[in-house]
C-alpha cells in the first residue's frame, strides 16, 4: 500500500497521550485528505502541539494509531520524518547563521545532494522574498521574513505533508496574509498542510478545521459545517455603552441562551429563532441601557469556538456532578 493509494494523507485513530496522570491528548480520531489545508484550533494547552509531535514521530503515543503518508508513525517514525516537513511553534532558525547558512544546514541534515540543494535554495530564497539578503544573519531579519525562511527550511526536501505549528505567531497582519498565500500555493501543488492557529480569521481559510479542547476533539468539518451548531440559534450583536450591564440583563432574559463579549460588542445567542433582534434591543432599552446598534449576525468561527468550549465545560461539570 503506497502513500498515493490512499486518499488520506493522515489517518488518526483514538490517539492518546498521557504525561503521568495528565491526559494531554484524549482519544482523538480524524483524517486529513491529500492536498487539504487542515486547521487545528484550540486554546493554549489544548493538546495541538502534542498531537503534531506524535504525528511527526517525535513523541510516542500512549495509545491509538496514526498513519502519515501511509506509514505507521509508531512503528516507523524515521521513515515518516523523510516525508514530512515541520515548522515548530517558535519557528526556530539559527540566529547566528546567515539566511544561506541556515538553508545549507537544514538541507544538510535532510541529506540533500549538492545539486538539488542549490536548486531548492534558489526556490526558497525566491519564495520567501529573500533575494539580496542571503548573507543577512537570521537574527537580523524582521518577523515576516524569518517566518518565511523557516517555512522554506521546512520544505527544502519537498515533503508531501507539512506540519505547521502556529506558524504566524507574533507576525504582523500583512506578513500573515502573505504567508497564507504561500500555504495556499503549496496546497494547490498537492502538499497536505496541517496547521495550528489561534487566529480564527486564518481558520476560515482552511478547507477543514478541527476544534480541540482539553485534549479532546470537540468539533470538526469545513468552516461552514462547524457553524451549523448555530442552526436555529440566531446570534444577535449588540453595541451598548454599558456592555457588562447589558450582558447581565441579557442573561436574565428567557429567550437568551448565553452571551459573550466580542471586542466592544456583545453577542447573545437566542434559544428561539422567532425572537427578533429588535425585540431584544427594546427590552434592553426598557431596562435603561443605551443600545447604539443591534443586528442579527452570521456566526463566526470564534462564536463556534466559544460555544464548543462552553458545552465541553458544561458536559465536564455534568459528569463531575
Amino acid at each position, binding site marked *: 500500500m503506497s502513500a498515493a493509494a490512499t486518499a488520506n494523507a493522515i489517518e488518526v485513530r483514538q490517539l492518546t497521550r498521557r504525561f503521568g496522570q495528565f491526559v494531554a491528548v484524549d482519544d482523538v480520531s480524524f483524517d486529513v485528505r491529500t492536498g487539504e489545508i487542515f486547521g487545528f484550533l484550540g486554546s493554549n494547552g489544548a493538546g495541538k502541539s502534542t498531537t503534531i509531535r506524535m504525528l511527526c514521530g517525535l513523541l510516542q503515543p500512549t495509545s491509538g494509531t496514526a498513519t502519515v503518508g501511509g506509514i505507521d508513525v509508531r512503528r516507523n517514525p524515521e521513515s515518516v*520524518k523523510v516525508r514530512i516537513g515541520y515548522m515548530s511553534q517558535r519557528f526556530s532558525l539559527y540566529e547566528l547563521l546567515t539566511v544561506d547558512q541556515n538553508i545549507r544546514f*537544514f538541507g544538510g541534515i535532510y541529506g540533500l545532494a549538492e545539486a538539488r540543494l542549490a536548486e531548492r535554495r534558489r526556490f526558497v530564497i525566491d519564495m520567501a522574498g529573500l533575494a539580496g539578503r542571503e548573507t543577512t544573519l537570521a537574527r537580523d531579519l524582521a518577523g515576516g521574513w524569518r517566518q518565511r525562511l523557516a517555512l522554506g*527550511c521546512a520544505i527544502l526536501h519537498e515533503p508531501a505533508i507539512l506540519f505547521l505549528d502556529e506558524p504566524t505567531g507574533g507576525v504582523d497582519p500583512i506578513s500573515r496574509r502573505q504567508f497564507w498565500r504561500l500555504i495556499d500555493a503549496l496546497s494547490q501543488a498537492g502538499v497536505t498542510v496541517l496547521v495550528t492557529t489561534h487566529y480564527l480569521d486564518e481558520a476560515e481559510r482552511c478547507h477543514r478545521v478541527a476544534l480541540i479542547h482539553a485534549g479532546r476533539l470537540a468539533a470538526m468539518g469545513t468552516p461552514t459545517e462547524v457553524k451549523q451548531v448555530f442552526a436555529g440559534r440566531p446570534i444577535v450583536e449588540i453595541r451598548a455603552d454599558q456592555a457588562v450591564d447589558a450582558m447581565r440583563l441579557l442573561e436574565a432574559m428567557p429567550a437568551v441562551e448565553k452571551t459573550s463579549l466580542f471586542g466592544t460588542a456583545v453577542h447573545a445567542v437566542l434559544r428561539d429563532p422567532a425572537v427578533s433582534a429588535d425585540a431584544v434591543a427594546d427590552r434592553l432599552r426598557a431596562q435603561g441601557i443605551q443600545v447604539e446598534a443591534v443586528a442579527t449576525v452570521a456566526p463566526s468561527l470564534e462564536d463556534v469556538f466559544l460555544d464548543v468550549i462552553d458545552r465541553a465545560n458544561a458536559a465536564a461539570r455534568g459528569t463531575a456532578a
Partner: protein
Amino acid sequence: MRKAFAVGRKELRQISRDRRTLLILVFVPAFFLLLYGYALNWDIRHVTLAVQDRDGTPESRALVSAFVNSSYFDRVADAYSPDEIDRLLDLNHARAVLIIPEGFGRDLARRQAPEVQVIINGENANTATTVMGYAANIIRSAGATFAPAAAPSPPPVSVEPRIWYNPELRSTLFLVPGLIAYILMITAVISTAISIVREKEVGTMEQVRMAPIDTFSFVVGKTIPYFLISLASAALIVLAAMLLFELPMRGNWIALLVALSLFIAGALGTGLVISTVADTQQVAFQAAMLSSFLPTLMLSGFIFPISSMPQALQIVTYAVPARYFLIALRGIVLKGTSIWLLLPQMGALIVYAAVMLGLASVRLARESR
C-alpha cells in the same frame, strides 16, 4: 556522514560568531592558567627570614649577607633560642630560618664541610620547595666563594634541608599538569553542555529532531568542533605553561596528544550527558561546574594527594577521569614515561569516555521517544 558534517560546520560557524563561547573556549583557559599559576606563587621574593648566627665569624656574616643580597629573603628577626624559632614560625613572623652552627668559620678554614640548617614553613608546599631551592643555591654559591680555588672538591658547605609541617613536599611543576586538567575539563564540559541546552531553549533542537538525522551523526557533528577547539586550547595551555612556568617536555608528543584526546573525549561526553538532563543553560552550567570543577580540583590528586584521603573518598576518585589523566600527563611531561607504561591510565580514560558518550547517545535517542 554528510549530515554529521552539516551539523559540525554549522556549529563552527555559530561558535565563530558567538563571542561568549569563543571567550570561554580560548581565552578563559589562558586566563585561568595565568591567574592560578601566579596565585600558586611560582616566583617568590622577599621571604621573611630569621637568622640564628651562633658562630658570629666573618664567614657566617658573609653567608647571611648572601641571603639578604639575593633579594629573595628579607631579614626580619634574629633568633637566639629554639623557642624563639618556634615562636617566629608559629606566628608567621618568619617563613624561613637560617641557623648557622658554632664553628662554621672554623670548619670552613679546616675544609671540613660545615653544616647549615635552613628551616622553612612548609604549609604551602609549592612555596616551600621554591624557597628551599633558593636557599640551597645561595648556600652553594656562597660556599664556592669561601673555598680556595685549588681546594679539593667536596662541597664546602652542605645543605641539610628540613621542611616543617609538610614532610611530603611536592614540586610546583607537579601542579601545572593538574591545572591543565582542571582548565580543560571545565571548558570542555561547560561548552558542550551549554551548546546543546541552548538549542533546546531556543527550540532549534526540536526542529533538528524532526529531521531524519540519527543520534550518532548528531553527536559526532556536535562534538567534533568542540573536540578540535579543546585540543587547540590544550595546546595553547601546554605551550603557555612551558613558556611561563618552565614546564618541561621530557616525553613523547604523540603520547601527550593521545592522553589529551582521550581526556577531552571524556569531558565532551560528560557535557553531552549533562545536556540531556538539564533543560536550561543555568542548570547546565551548575551541573557542569559540580561534575567537573569539584572532582577535578579535589579528587584527582591535583591539590590533595589521593593517598592521604579517607578510604571512601579514595574509592570515589576511581571515577574521576582527571585522576588518570594527571598520572599520565605528569608521567609524560615531567618524567618522559613511555606510553606503554601508562596503558592502565589510558585504558581508564577510554572507558570513561566510552561510558559517557554511550550514555549520552542512549539518552539523546530516548529523549526523542
